């Protein structure tokens, strides 16, 4: 009986253990948390030679042995794991890669603002990471962490942000979107707010004359924005934003890749500014009530084998703004003295197409054609002033790229055509006009493969209002020593000034409009021409093993003819052609340094000396600080599991004294000092990336609450003679706090 019990026990034992299979699955541990099984992994009882290997599913089964308690799991390239066997199914066993054996690839993260050492032109490339630092919301607001351009607000009523380069206002800049002119003519003031920041992949800021390929209009420089591309963009993007002034923004993008050559994207932006904000208690809204719907459909075709590339874009925009006195109701008060108010309604359609061909056998030879159509329709009134503008534009450009002898000598040549039709009404006066131009260009690039390279361009244009003229441009780069470049540039630009579209803020004042007839064919004025000459130096070096960039540049823009916008009489705005000198000199010194790992500091000093011969004498351009200082400090924590990290960013702008336009002929109560005091503005942002798909950000703009106490002259009597919202030298809106998130798939 006893023995049979033992037999039974043994039998049991046999059943429960000897037959038992210990099972498990071996997987590779990786940071993406993806389940990758490992096959042929050795699984062995500790201190024995009894073992097995995993199958192609990573699974193993090994008979249980009473005398062993531990399993050794080992695989080449991974850390060996020893597991105590305390259950029949060991489940998932994660093997960690053996780091010592793995080759470590050290990659230098590129600075989000890149100053090229090798580009012949002075180009600063701003990528989408930098754009995230200014969490809001459109192109005009994306330069706030960037010292190459200055952002200022045109007036105290519309709150439109304008940018300046080299001391000149934005009309002297040539804006391009994927190398096709955009933000021209009628959209000059508000156009920057029509390009949502989240659609932008990168921005290239070129200081100086620029290339002849994109036309003759650029005088201070060029800003090109590249939009995200359906083939490379994430499938889904969603961003929402809200701030303490009831401003809400929605950005979403959806891309679908139809096959390996064709992809399409649908991009949508909507914003709403719904808050009646009047912190300075002047009864005027500090920020307009606004709404915008912006939609884009984009197609990308790319066949690298055959050499074809093509884009097709269609964008539609509806934008409405209402501003003025708090109690203004458009329905009852429009064009009355009940209350001062303004509405600006814009709808705009943009269609553009691009076609490029690279000869598959000759990689240096290519052909490109781009064409664009736009229709811009703005209906607006500012108090009792009516301003309507319709601008229809066609643009076509064909470029052929090739070489002369070898790739040391490259050239680009082509033809361009431009048609602009303006229907413009200022109160009761009509200023309709049609501009046509055709041009041919040739640009030669030389590279001696060592120190010297230059780009020399020439274009010949025939324009029905500007005449027939040539535009020469030259850029030269010479590398002085290791990691140092010297750049020189010179070139001429010519343009037709759209005096009302570019200076719309004048309507939000009681100033009389005075055009001094010069029997020209642009509002009776002559076109503008200027020479831009610059010199720059860049040195990159390593200081205490950390990257440092030092750059210095100086530009001088001298107008041979200009349409002067004269604000010096407080009761009028005058437009007249330059007689005398108008010279803008600007100096910029930049220093950027990585203080500790992932912490970057950028310091900039700018000096603008913009002197214009007004009718009343030679003066500094008003509302233009002579000295500016900028600093940005950014920090990013190391990326953890699934890209989890923090990003922090701090920016300080300091603006020196500004000369104010003359107000001595006003009644004493409406006189302003000759100069304003210096002030600074602080912006900061904190971003938490929860994982590679989702991040939340919180930020503050104008944290010090620097505002102009009385941004509007005679705000209490907006229909009186002294009403003027155009003398704005500091922000109207105080501290702004915002919160937002981004999600991408």
């Amino acid at each position: 009986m006893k023995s049979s019990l033992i037999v039974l026990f043994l039998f049991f034992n046999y059943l429960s253990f000897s037959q038992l299979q210990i099972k498990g699955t071996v997987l590779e541990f990786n940071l993406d948390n993806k389940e990758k099984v490992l096959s042929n992994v050795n699984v062995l009882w500790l201190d024995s030679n009894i073992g097995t290997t995993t199958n192609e599913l990573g699974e193993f089964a090994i008979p249980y042995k009473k005398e062993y308690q531990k399993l050794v799991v080992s695989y080449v390239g991974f850390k060996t794991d020893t597991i105590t066997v305390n259950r029949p199914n060991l489940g998932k066993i994660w093997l960690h890669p053996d780091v010592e054996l793995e080759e470590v690839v050290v990659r230098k993260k590129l600075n989000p603002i890149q100053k090229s050492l090798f580009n012949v032109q002075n180009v600063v490339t701003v990528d989408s990471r930098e754009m995230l630092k200014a969490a809001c919301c459109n192109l005009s607001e994306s330069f706030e962490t960037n010292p190459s351009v200055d952002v200022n607000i045109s007036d105290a009523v519309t709150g439109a942000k304008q940018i300046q380069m080299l001391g000149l206002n934005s009309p002297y800049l040539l804006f391009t979107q994927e190398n096709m002119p955009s933000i021209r003519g009628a959209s000059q003031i508000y156009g920057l707010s029509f390009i949502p920041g989240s659609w932008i992949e990168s921005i290239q800021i070129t200081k100086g004359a620029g290339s002849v390929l994109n036309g003759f209009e650029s005088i201070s420089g060029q800003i090109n924005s590249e939009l995200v591309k359906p083939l490379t963009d994430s499938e889904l993007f969603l961003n929402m934003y809200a701030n303490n002034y009831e401003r809400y923004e929605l950005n979403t993008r959806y891309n679908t890749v139809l096959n390996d050559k064709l992809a399409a994207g649908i991009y949508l932006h909507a914003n709403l500014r719904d808050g009646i904000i009047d912190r300075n208690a002047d009864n005027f809204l500090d920020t307009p009530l606004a709404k915008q719907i912006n939609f884009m459909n984009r197609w990308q075709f790319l066949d690298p084998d055959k050499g074809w590339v093509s884009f097709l874009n269609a964008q539609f925009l509806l934008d409405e703004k209402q501003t003025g006195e708090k109690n203004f109701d458009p329905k009852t008060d429009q064009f009355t003295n009940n209350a001062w108010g303004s509405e600006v309604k814009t709808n705009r359609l943009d269609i553009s197409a691009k076609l490029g061909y690279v000869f598959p056998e000759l990689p240096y030879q290519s052909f490109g054609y781009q064409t664009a159509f736009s229709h811009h329709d703005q209906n607006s009134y500012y108090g009792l002033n009516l301003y309507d503008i319709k601008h229809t534009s066609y643009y076509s450009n064909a470029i052929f790229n090739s070489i002369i002898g070898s790739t040391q000598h490259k050239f680009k040549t082509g033809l361009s055509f431009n048609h602009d039709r303006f229907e413009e009404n200022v109160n009761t006066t009509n200023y309709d006009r049609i501009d046509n131009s055709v041009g041919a260009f040739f640009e030669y690039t030389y590279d001696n493969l060592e120190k010297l390279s230059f780009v020399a361009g020439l274009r010949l244009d025939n324009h029905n209002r500007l005449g027939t003229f040539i535009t020469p441009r030259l850029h030269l780069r010479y590398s002085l020593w290791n990691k140092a470049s010297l750049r020189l540039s010179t070139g001429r630009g010519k343009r037709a000034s759209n005096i009302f579209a570019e200076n719309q803020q004048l309507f939000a004042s009681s100033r009389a409009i005075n055009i001094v007839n010069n029997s020209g064919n642009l509002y009776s004025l002559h076109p503008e021409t200027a020479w831009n000459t610059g010199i720059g130096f860049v040195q990159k070096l390593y200081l205490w093993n950390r990257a440092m960039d030092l750059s210095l540049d100086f530009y001088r823009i001298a107008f041979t003819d200009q349409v002067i916008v004269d604000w010096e009489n407080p009761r009028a705005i005058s437009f007249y052609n330059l007689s005398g000198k108008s010279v803008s000199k600007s100096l910029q010194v930049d220093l950027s340094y990585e203080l500790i790992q992932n912490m970057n500091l950028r310091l900039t000093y700018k000096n603008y000396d913009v002197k214009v011969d007004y009718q009343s004498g030679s003066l500094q351009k008003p509302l233009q600080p002579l000295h500016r200082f900028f600093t940005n400090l950014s920090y990013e924590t190391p990326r953890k599991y699934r890209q989890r990290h923090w990003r922090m960013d701090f920016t300080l702008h300091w603006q020196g004294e500004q000369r104010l336009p003359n107000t001595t002929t006003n009644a004493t109560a409406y006189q302003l000092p000759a100069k304003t005091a210096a002030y600074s503005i602080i912006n900061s942002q904190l971003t938490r990336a929860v994982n590679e798909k989702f991040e939340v950000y919180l930020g503050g703009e104008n944290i010090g609450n620097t505002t102009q106490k009385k941004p509007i002259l005679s705000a209490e009597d907006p229909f009186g003679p002294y009403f003027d919202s155009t003398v704005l030298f500091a922000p109207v809106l105080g501290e702004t706090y915002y919160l937002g998130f981004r999600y991408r798939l």
Partner: protein
Amino acid sequence: MFTTKTFGKIIWMASILLVSVQLNAQDKNKKVSFEVKGNCGMCKARIEKAALKVKGVKYVNWDIPSKKITLILDENKCSPMDVRKAIALKGHDTDSTKADIKTYNNLPACCKYRDPNSIHMDHGTKH
């Protein structure tokens, strides 16, 4: 009368002529590819410069991982051998030319591709 021997000679000469005619039909955009030894971005700049300075070479690209150079050249002006020689003169071996040891020794340490350890050195950043 022709003997069979002279007839054979004529045929032989005619075929030579034909071949040389074919040889004369030289390509203005001849694509050539061969191996060039080297390590890094500094090597790339040196190799490409040497090749592009040869008269007749229109386009050069040396691919670091595969060590292959791709050229487009005008066969009327130069031959692929001229390019190989020019590259070797700057210290880089090709599939059929070898650089002089003196020139090779003057290369920066990280570019000394004959030493298998040189690939692991710090090659600096070209840009």
